[in-house]
C-alpha cells in the first residue's frame, strides 16, 4: 500500500501558502497610504532595497529553521540553538496569539463593510459615525468576530490540506478583485495625476532618513520576518523543495500585491477629490480613516461605486482571512509538537482567541493598543530570528541548507553579511526609532494604560518575555520529539497537521 506523502502537495502549493500568509491588510490599506505620505517613487525604491537586503535574508534563515527542526516556533528555537532558547520561540507564538486575536476583529470589520457594500448600507450616512458604530460596542461585529475565529481555527485544524484548499479560493479572488479595482481606478478621469504622484521621484526624499525607516517598517510588517510565519509554514515543506526560490517568490509575490493595491487606491483618491491637498489629507488619515471613512465616501461618489466597493472589501477580506489562518497555525503547531490531540488544540486555540480578542472586537481603542504592542514585538521577534541564525552558523546554513543540490539558484556570501550585520542592526534601529517616536506622539508615554504609549508596550512586551522565560524548561520538555541532528533534514513528521 502506498501512503500519501506528508507536507505540501507541490512546491507551488508551498509558495502560494507562503504568499497567502504574508499578504494581509497591510498590503492593501497601509502600503498605498505610506507610499503617498513618503514621497512616492523614492519611497518605493527604498522599500524595494529594504525587502531584498533586510527581509529576504531573515526569511531565508527562518525557512531553514522550520525545515530542519520540523517544529513550530518554540521547538524550532530549541532544536536549532539549544534548550535554553526555547523561550524565544514561545514568545513569538504568544505574540502571534495576540495578533490573531485582534486581527480577527479587523477581519470582522471588513466583513461588516463587505455586507454594507452589498446592500448599499453605508450610502447616504455619516461615514465617521458609521465606522465608530461598527468598531465600538456593536453586537454584529462581535458575532462576525466569533465567526472569523471559528473559520480561521477550523481551516488551521484541517492542516496543510485545509490551508491549500482555502488558498485556492482566497488568492485568486483577492488578486482578481484587486486587479478589477485597479483597472477601474485607472479608467477614472485624472487618474494619471495619482499615478504620477505614486511613482514621482524626488532625490531629496531618498536622502531623507525617515523615508528609509518608513520603507523598512512597511517591508517588515508586510512580508513577515520575525512572526514565526515562515518557520511554521516551512515545517511542512519537503526536503527536496527549493528554499531560495520559494522564499524569493514569497517576497516578490507580497510586493507585487502591494503595488496592485497602490495602483487601485491612489489614482482613485486623486481622481475623485477636488485637489491634491484633499487627496493627501485622506492618505494621511490613518489605515482605518482611509479605508472605512474616506474610501467609502469615494465609492459612493463614483459611477458603479457599489460594485467597486464590493470588490475592494472582498479583496481585503480574503487578504486578511488568509493571513489570519496562518496566524492561528503559528499558535496551534506548538501544541501539536507537544502531542496534544488536534481536536483539543482546536478548542484551546478557539477559547484563547475568543477571550483575548473579544475586547478588541468591542473597542477600537483596545484594538489599536494591541496592534501597537504586537507591531513592536514583531520587531523583537525579527531580532530573535537573526540571533538564532547567527548562533547556529551562517556559513553552514548557506552552504548546507540553502545551497542544496535541489536549488534553482545559489545564495552568495552577501547573505551571511546581511544576516550578521545589516538585518539585525537595521531592525534594532527601527525598533528604537519607533519607541522614540511614541514619546513624541503620546504625551502620556509613561502611562501603561494609554493605548499607544511606550509604557504599555514595555509592560505588555516584558510580561510576555518574562513569562516565556520562566516557563522555558517546562515548554522545552513538553515538546516531544527532536528530529534534527544538526546536519540532515528530517522528513515531514506526522503531527496531525501535515497531511
Amino acid at each position, binding site marked *: 500500500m502506498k501512503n500519501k506523502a506528508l507536507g505540501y502537495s507541490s512546491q*507551488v502549493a508551498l509558495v502560494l501558502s507562503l504568499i497567502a500568509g504574508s499578504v494581509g491588510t497591510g498590503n492593501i490599506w497601509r502600503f498605498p497610504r505610506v507610499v503617498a505620505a513618503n514621497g512616492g*517613487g523614492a519611497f518605493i525604491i527604498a522599500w524595494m532595497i529594504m525587502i531584498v537586503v533586510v527581509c529576504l535574508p531573515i526569511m531565508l534563515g527562518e525557512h531553514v529553521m522550520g525545515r530542519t527542526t520540523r517544529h513550530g516556533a518554540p521547538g524550532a528555537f530549541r532544536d536549532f540553538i539549544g534548550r535554553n532558547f526555547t523561550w524565544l520561540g514561545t514568545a513569538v507564538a504568544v505574540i502571534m496569539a495576540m495578533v490573531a486575536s485582534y486581527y480577527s476583529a479587523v477581519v470582522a470589520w471588513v466583513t461588516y463593510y463587505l455586507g454594507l457594500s452589498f446592500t448599499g448600507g453605508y450610502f447616504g450616512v455619516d461615514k465617521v459615525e458609521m465606522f465608530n458604530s461598527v468598531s465600538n460596542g456593536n453586537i454584529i461585529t462581535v458575532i462576525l468576530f466569533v465567526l472569523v475565529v471559528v473559520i480561521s481555527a477550523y481551516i488551521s485544524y484541517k492542516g496543510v490540506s485545509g490551508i491549500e484548499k482555502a488558498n485556492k479560493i482566497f488568492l485568486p479572488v483577492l488578486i482578481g478583485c484587486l486587479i478589477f479595482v485597479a483597472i477601474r481606478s485607472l479608467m477614472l478621469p485624472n487618474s494619471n495625476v495619482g499615478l504620477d504622484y505614486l*511613482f514621482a521621484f524626488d532625490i531629496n526624499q531618498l536622502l531623507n532618513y525617515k523615508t528609509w525607516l518608513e520603507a523598512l517598517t512597511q517591508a517588515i510588517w508586510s512580508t513577515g520576518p520575525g512572526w514565526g510565519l515562515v518557520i511554521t509554514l516551512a515545517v511542512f515543506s519537503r526536503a527536496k523543495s527549493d528554499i531560495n526560490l520559494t522564499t524569493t*517568490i514569497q517576497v516578490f509575490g507580497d510586493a507585487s500585491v502591494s503595488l496592485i493595491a497602490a495602483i487601485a487606491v491612489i489614482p482613485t483618491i486623486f481622481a475623485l477629490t477636488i485637489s491634491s491637498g484633499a487627496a493627501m489629507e485622506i492618505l494621511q488619515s490613518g489605515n482605518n480613516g482611509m479605508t472605512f471613512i474616506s474610501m467609502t465616501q469615494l465609492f459612493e461618489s463614483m459611477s458603479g461605486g457599489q460594485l467597486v466597493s464590493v470588490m475592494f472589501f472582498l479583496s481585503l477580506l480574503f487578504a486578511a482571512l488568509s493571513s489570519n489562518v496562518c496566524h492561528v497555525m503559528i499558535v496551534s503547531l506548538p501544541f501539536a509538537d507537544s502531542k496534544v490531540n488536534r481536536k483539543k488544540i482546536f478548542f484551546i486555540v478557539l477559547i484563547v482567541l475568543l477571550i483575548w480578542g473579544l475586547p478588541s472586537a468591542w473597542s477600537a481603542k483596545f484594538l489599536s493598543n494591541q496592534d501597537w504592542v504586537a507591531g513592536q514585538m514583531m520587531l523583537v521577534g525579527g531580532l530573535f530570528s537573526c540571533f538564532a541564525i547567527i548562533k547556529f552558523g551562517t556559513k553552514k546554513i548557506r552552504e548546507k541548507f540553502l545551497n542544496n543540490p535541489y536549488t*534553482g539558484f545559489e545564495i552568495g556570501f552577501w547573505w551571511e553579511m546581511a544576516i550578521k550585520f545589516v538585518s539585525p542592526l537595521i531592525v534594532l534601529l527601527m525598533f528604537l526609532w519607533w519607541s522614540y517616536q511614541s514619546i513624541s506622539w503620546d504625551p502620556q508615554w509613561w502611562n501603561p494604560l494609554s493605548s499607544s504609549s511606550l509604557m504599555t508596550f514595555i509592560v505588555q512586551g516584558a510580561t510576555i518575555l518574562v513569562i516565556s522565560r520562566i516557563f522555558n524548561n517546562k515548554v522545552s520538555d513538553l515538546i516531544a520529539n527532536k528530529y534534527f541532528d544538526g546536519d540532515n533534514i528530517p522528513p515531514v513528521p506526522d503531527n496531525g497537521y501535515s497531511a
Partner: protein
Amino acid sequence: MQTSSIIVMVGVLTFFWGGFAYFMYKLVSISKNQETN
C-alpha cells in the same frame, strides 16, 4: 505623467511583477523536472 515617474513605474513593476513571473516559471520548471526524474 512626468518622465521620471514613468521610468520609476516601469522599473519597479518590471522588477517585482517580472521577477515574480520569472521565479515562478523557474519553480514550475524545476518541479516538473523533479517529477520526471
